[in-house]
């Protein structure tokens, strides 16, 4: 085949521009850390990439939702803890008052303290976390009890559900009925009433009534505790999923730096060789050797 200078320089240019295209590709890979920069580089990786990204976002979002769940549960639990303590204090006071040794005046003082404890319990029932009443079902923007401990018209016992994984919704609140039932404050009111009297029989009877309150509070906490355990399991699962999803995404589209840099260096050497060879071959012609 007859080869001319024009062909040589055309080929040289063509190969150099191909070499530049390769350099550009490897450079892009190294500087972005991604195997592909556009769908046509590898349609399968691109399609999977979009899908994996969504998975990661979903997992992250559900983790955010779970933070919200913790917010609900931890605060509800803390409130119920305080409620239990208040109820126990109330019980102690009643037991004290049921002693024969107490005088009427002393019982009145106990009655006043009991009244304070009731107010405290009403406050607990109206606990507001993050601007939300946590013991009023889904009607979180209304207080469930008035200052006297009577249910308001907005009292609500619906479950608050939060999505914690695709298709999994979890109840996050304590149904107010389970703890602050219709009878809850009635029993306390009754106890406060009888504390003022010297009727020890009645006081002892009211202690039994109060035990029902304590039990329901403890039961509600036990139920909440069980759900908190479940949330922890889900949380563990989500963090595993997050790692897996991110790893899959990374495996799918991130470059192996060692490989990319090796490629880049190899290509660079090739490019230098092509330039050097080109410069040597394109320059001389027969003219240089004729006198």
């Amino acid at each position: 085949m007859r080869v001319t200078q024009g062909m040589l320089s055309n080929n040289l240019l063509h190969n150099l521009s191909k070499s530049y295209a390769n350099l550009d590709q490897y450079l892009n890979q190294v500087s972005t850390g991604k195997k592909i920069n556009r769908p046509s580089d590898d349609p399968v990786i691109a399609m999977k990439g979009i899908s994996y990204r969504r998975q990661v976002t979903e997992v992250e979002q559900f983790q955010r939702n779970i933070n919200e769940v913790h917010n609900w549960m931890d605060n509800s639990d803390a409130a119920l803890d305080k409620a239990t303590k208040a109820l126990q204090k109330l019980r102690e006071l009643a037991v004290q008052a049921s002693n024969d040794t107490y005088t009427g005046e002393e019982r009145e003082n106990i009655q006043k303290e009991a009244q304070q404890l009731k107010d405290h319990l009403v406050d607990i029932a109206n606990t507001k976390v993050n601007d939300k009443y946590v013991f009023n079902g889904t009607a979180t923007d209304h207080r469930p009890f008035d200052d006297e401990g009577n249910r308001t018209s907005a009292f609500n016992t619906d479950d608050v559900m939060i999505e914690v994984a695709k298709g999994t919704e979890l109840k996050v609140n304590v149904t107010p009925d389970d703890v602050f039932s219709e009878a809850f404050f009635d029993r306390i009111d009754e106890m406060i009433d009888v504390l003022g009297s010297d009727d020890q029989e009645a006081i002892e009877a009211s202690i039994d009534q109060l035990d029902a309150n304590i039990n329901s509070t403890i039961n509600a906490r036990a139920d909440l505790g069980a759900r908190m355990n479940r949330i922890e399991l889900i949380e563990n699962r989500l963090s595993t999923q997050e790692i897996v999803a991110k790893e899959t995404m990374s495996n799918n589209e991130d470059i192996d730096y060692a490989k990319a840099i090796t490629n880049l260096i190899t290509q660079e050497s090739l490019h230098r060789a092509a330039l050097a060879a080109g410069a040597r071959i394109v320059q001389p012609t027969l003219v240089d050797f004729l006198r």
Partner: protein
Amino acid sequence: MSTFHGLEMAKQALFAQQSALYTTGHNISNANTEGYTRQRVNFETMPAYPSASRNRPEMPGQFGTGVDIAAVDRLRDKFLDMQYRTENSKAGFWEAKAAALDRLERLMNEPSESGLSQSMKQFWQSLQDLSTNPDNSGAKSVVAQRGQALADAFNYTADSLESIRDDLKAEINHHADKVNSLVRSINRINEQIKQIEPHGYIPNDLYDDRDRMIDELSEIVNIRVDHVKSGDSSPDHADGLVTITLADEHGKPIDGATLVDAEGHIQEIDVDFSTAHGAYEVVTGVRVGEDTFEMSQGSLKGNIEAYGYLQDGQVTGIYTNMLNDLDQMTTAFTEAFNRVYLGEDEGANRVPFFEIGDANRPAATVRVHATIIDAPETIIASQDGYGDLASRLADVFDEELADLDDTSTHKFFESLIGRLGVDAQEANTMKNNTDVLRSQVDEQRMSVSSVSLDEEMTNMIKFQHAYSAAARSMTAIDEMIDRLINNMGLVGR
């Protein structure tokens, strides 16, 4: 044999070698001229003496009488030209298509943290956040803004697609104009050749010009080139006139689609656009003269396929398909979203979340209802439970929609990008393949036709030596005649 025969022969040789030197100079001058074909002076021997005839002198053997220039030839292979033009059409087609897909890929910008899918994800996240804080007006504002951001992403993508389509239309028209201007120029060269060839000349440089233009033409449209003799008295090895006809994908000429004929008639091409098919303007056909023909290969067809065209009455094309798919996705998603959002409550105290300005161009005109933007706190997040509506709205993205061929919005978009990737990959591969084939043919063609400076140098020396030798031979004959005339018959003087 005449006394002065040798002088004449040496003169012929001087002329012949000189013209070969000039041609070498012409080649060197045009070594870098686009489309130039190297030329050669064809030497042939003069008729020998004596010729066979009744009154021939009786002498032993025939004597050579010197050199003559038979012709100045172009070293070119027509078969390679044909191959080159076929490959050039294919390469032009795939180059145009790959360029259009490349722009589309850049525009869609997937997979990334800033494309349409990112806007969808962020909107989904804001709905999830709202579902956990359904009464929080901050969360509602975020939903309204992210919803608008999603609508903006749709608007931006659709608007950009349309503006690229405007560019493509300009390019299509430009290509058609270029075809017409090339056709006129080729016809003009045909006319010139028709005037020169019958006089026995071979207008090599005009052929080069014409071949270069035909090469250019073949990149835009697939053509079939035929050669026709320019006249009875034209030399046999003259290239003659060319006729150019649009060709189908097998390279067969299409009946009636003649661009240039040997009689000097030309037909110009014209691209017809119509807005009567669907929401977007499409190419309805390419006319040659009065009739419409199907294009095969060439960058014109590549751009038409990118812009959008009618095929068997159906609108198709890279950009129109993308626009229609985005429109389909926008309509299906916003309808499903509004359906969930409004529930049974339409009109009473809820406005639709998304609204579409122009039903023909949903992706370009979708937006969040003005009431919601003005007063995000009116967004309703809970229907039967705590944030249940927001949660169900978030699920719309994963809902399989009949309007999206029973896939979810997410999946539909993913497959859209997947298809784009596959198409672009095919176009890129084909572009590279056809480019390799074309450069291979071009290589072969250059191997035949391009100027090699070393070769010209060698030839120059060859002809220079021959010229000097011819001059020396003339001197020898001169001395011989001098001896004959001035120094003969002087015996003993």
